[in-house]
């Protein structure tokens, strides 16, 4: 009897030991194997349509349910299982993309913390727009390849396709005063003729997942565009005769008002929040540039600033200051121009005004990508031509106090098209190297 008891006791001990070993193995698996993880597929899937060639484009809604997860540059990936299916409601679990900054790092499921720096799109992007809805910031962006519009919630990782209307090879996309209205610019097939489409997003019908884009074409060959982010109007420059004519229209092109005429066609227009249209001459390194307010009542130009070599300028929303870059020997420098006082003062940084965006809540604050180093060249020409690629860090400049604050170091990012959300919650930029889209939470 005692032998039986002894045997039973030994069996029990063996089972307990076995269970302990299995439990330990599971723990080890959870810590080391899942954490190290395999490389995650691109957040925006394989190439669109056509033979499945991997061009890093958007996954067609072909019903295979593969959700997008991104490569997470610079982050020790982890914790996120791949191959998550489409939730079936048109939403695709977005990548819990990592990045540097507080809160980065992997997590599993609902405990995952959204990193401050996110790659919203790793495929070429033509434009981005942020808006608030019931306290949540949404970001819409348009991919260059097919012109499809996607929307990301910034308080979680969800990503959804808003429209599936295909308009190939969009070079520029600019939203106006709402998330539904935008201007698209592309080349007529096989030519260098620029087409400009005033577009509206038609939301999905009830029960549908995706909407479509409808629009009206402006005359071919529009040189440049500026949009009124407050009133929704569009200012565009159209070659006529030996010069150019400036028109203001609405998103429906229902009214066309001629407001400007010039024998010079090379202008960069800007429309401030305060309602001013500013025209700056297209720059070249050693050529004196000028910036003007356009009086739309009589077409006259009133000089803001002039006779600065290689000048580019970005006026703040209330039209009181401009961040100005001008060419120096082989490089450039940055200054702040007080429009009322007519004073031009250096601020101790060197960047191009195209790498900057003014705050929407404080007209004295500007955010800029500032190159870590400046290769010798003719600026801004060399940068415009793509002959020189820069690597930037992200900075905040207080033009009232004259102080600068370093925000973020970036890895091989040449910041272009810097923009900002309605209340300065997020910065957005396109990496000129590969046209990917990023967001950074301020």
């Amino acid at each position, binding site marked *: 009897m005692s032998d039986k008891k002894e045997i039973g006791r030994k069996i029990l001990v063996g089972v307990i030991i076995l269970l302990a070993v299995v439990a330990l193995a599971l723990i080890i698996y959870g810590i080391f194997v899942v954490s190290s993880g395999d490389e995650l597929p691109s957040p925006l899937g394989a190439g669109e349509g056509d033979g499945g060639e991997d061009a890093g484009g958007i996954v067609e809604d072909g019903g295979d349910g593969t959700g997008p997860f991104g490569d997470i540059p610079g982050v020790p990936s982890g914790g996120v299982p791949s191959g998550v299916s489409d939730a079936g409601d048109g939403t695709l679990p977005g990548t819990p993309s990592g990045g540097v900054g507080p809160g980065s790092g992997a997590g599993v499921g609902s405990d995952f913390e959204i990193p401050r720096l996110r790659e919203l799109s790793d495929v070429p992007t033509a434009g981005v727009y942020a808006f608030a809805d019931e306290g949540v910031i949404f970001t819409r962006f348009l991919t260059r390849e097919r012109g499809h519009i996607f929307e990301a919630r910034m308080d979680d990782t969800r990503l959804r396709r808003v429209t599936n209307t295909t308009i190939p090879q969009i070079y520029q996309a600019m939203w106006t005063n709402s998330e539904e209205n935008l201007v698209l610019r592309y080349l007529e097939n096989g030519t260098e003729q620029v087409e400009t489409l005033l577009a509206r997003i038609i939301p999905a019908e009830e029960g549908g997942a995706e909407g479509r884009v409808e629009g009206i074409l402006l005359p071919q060959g529009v040189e440049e565009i500026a949009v009124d982010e407050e009133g929704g109007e569009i200012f565009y420059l159209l070659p006529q005769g030996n010069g150019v004519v400036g028109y203001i229209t609405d998103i429906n092109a229902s009214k066309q008002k001629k407001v400007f005429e010039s024998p010079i066609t090379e202008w960069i227009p800007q429309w401030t929040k305060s309602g001013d249209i500013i025209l700056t001459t297209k*720059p070249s390194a050693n050529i004196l540039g000028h910036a003007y307010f356009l009086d739309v009542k009589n077409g006259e130009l009133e000089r803001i600033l002039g006779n600065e070599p290689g000048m580019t300028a970005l006026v703040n929303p209330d039209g009181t200051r401009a961040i100005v870059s001008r060419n120096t020997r082989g490089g450039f420098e940055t200054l702040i121009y007080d429009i009322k006082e007519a004073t031009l003062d250096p601020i101790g940084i060197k960047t191009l005004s195209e790498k900057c965006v003014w705050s929407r809540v404080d007209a004295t604050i500007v955010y800029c990508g500032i190159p870590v180093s400046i290769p010798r060249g003719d600026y801004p020409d060399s940068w*415009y031509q793509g002959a020189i690629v820069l690597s930037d860090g992200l900075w905040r400049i207080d033009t009232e106090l004259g102080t600068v604050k370093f925000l973020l170091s970036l890895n091989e990012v040449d910041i272009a098209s810097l923009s900002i959300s309605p209340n300065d919650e997020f910065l957005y930029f396109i990496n000129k190297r590969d046209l990917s889209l990023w967001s950074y939470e301020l």
Partner: protein
Amino acid sequence: MKNQRIKKRAIVIFVALVCFFAVSAGEAEAQTLFGDINKTVSLTSTPRIPGSNEEVLIEINSVLANLGTSLITWYVNDRIVLSGYGEQRISVRTGNPGSASVIRVSILSAGSVLEASMVIRPTIADVIWEADTYTPPFYRGKALPSTESKIKLWAVPDIRSDSGARVSSNNLVYEWRINGLPVREISGYGKNAAFIQSGYLGQSNVAEVVARTSDGVISASGKSYYQIVEPWLVFYEKNSLTGILFNTMLGNDVRLSKGDSIILRAVPYFFDRDALQGSNAAYTWKLDRDIIDRGTSPSYEISISSGENAAVSGITVEYDIDIEDRLLQSASQKINVRYDE
């Protein structure tokens, strides 16, 4: 006795009259003398036609020998800005077009006060030029002039009348100068825009304009420089899905994976536009120096595939543009396409 009294009275009256006129004459002479001195004091400005928001040097112009020891007080818009012995010049910053600065100087010399004044009304005449040379779509930079290309000039004057109203640019008289030489054909009433020929490679040029009101009273001046450059060819990749990647210029080498292909897009920066579209243009593609395509119509793209031939490690692609009847309207560019194994 009575006659002697009359004589005495006459003499007194006579002497009194003589004294009176003598003093008066002296005074008149003194007044005349000081009046002449006032007329010899004036003010000059440098630059002579000040622009807006710029520093202007105002100086006393006078034949007086003792300015260095005179107490001189300067006023700008009735506010004292400088006062001291021998202060013969000041620097003033002008305002925007339409503003006026009243400069007055008061000189205390030998017990007398001399004054002179002037009014500075800043004016502007920006000169903007534009070359009729090629740049690709969506390019944000300026087209630069190449040899014998056309250049368009435009003057943007800002001249205000006494009331502050801006004088219409169509109602001004323009005098254009290129490299210091007046160009009468493009000058005249209302002629604020003009076409000129660019010049030759390496030349640095200046286009100047003076814009005047019809009565010649108010004027504005401005200038701009332009340098003639060589046109040049560069390559970009054309992606079949996303279009021409103008964001990054291709360098001397590009790598292709086995089985891959690339579309090279040549872009002819700063070629004269008319020359590119003319019948004398020759466009040539070469592969490893062999001409594979040559024509008179632009053909800016070529597709290169890595192929399956393991023995071929790469190929050199060359593109030439030559405009036969146009000086220095030609360029050539090469790129090495390397095949990875």
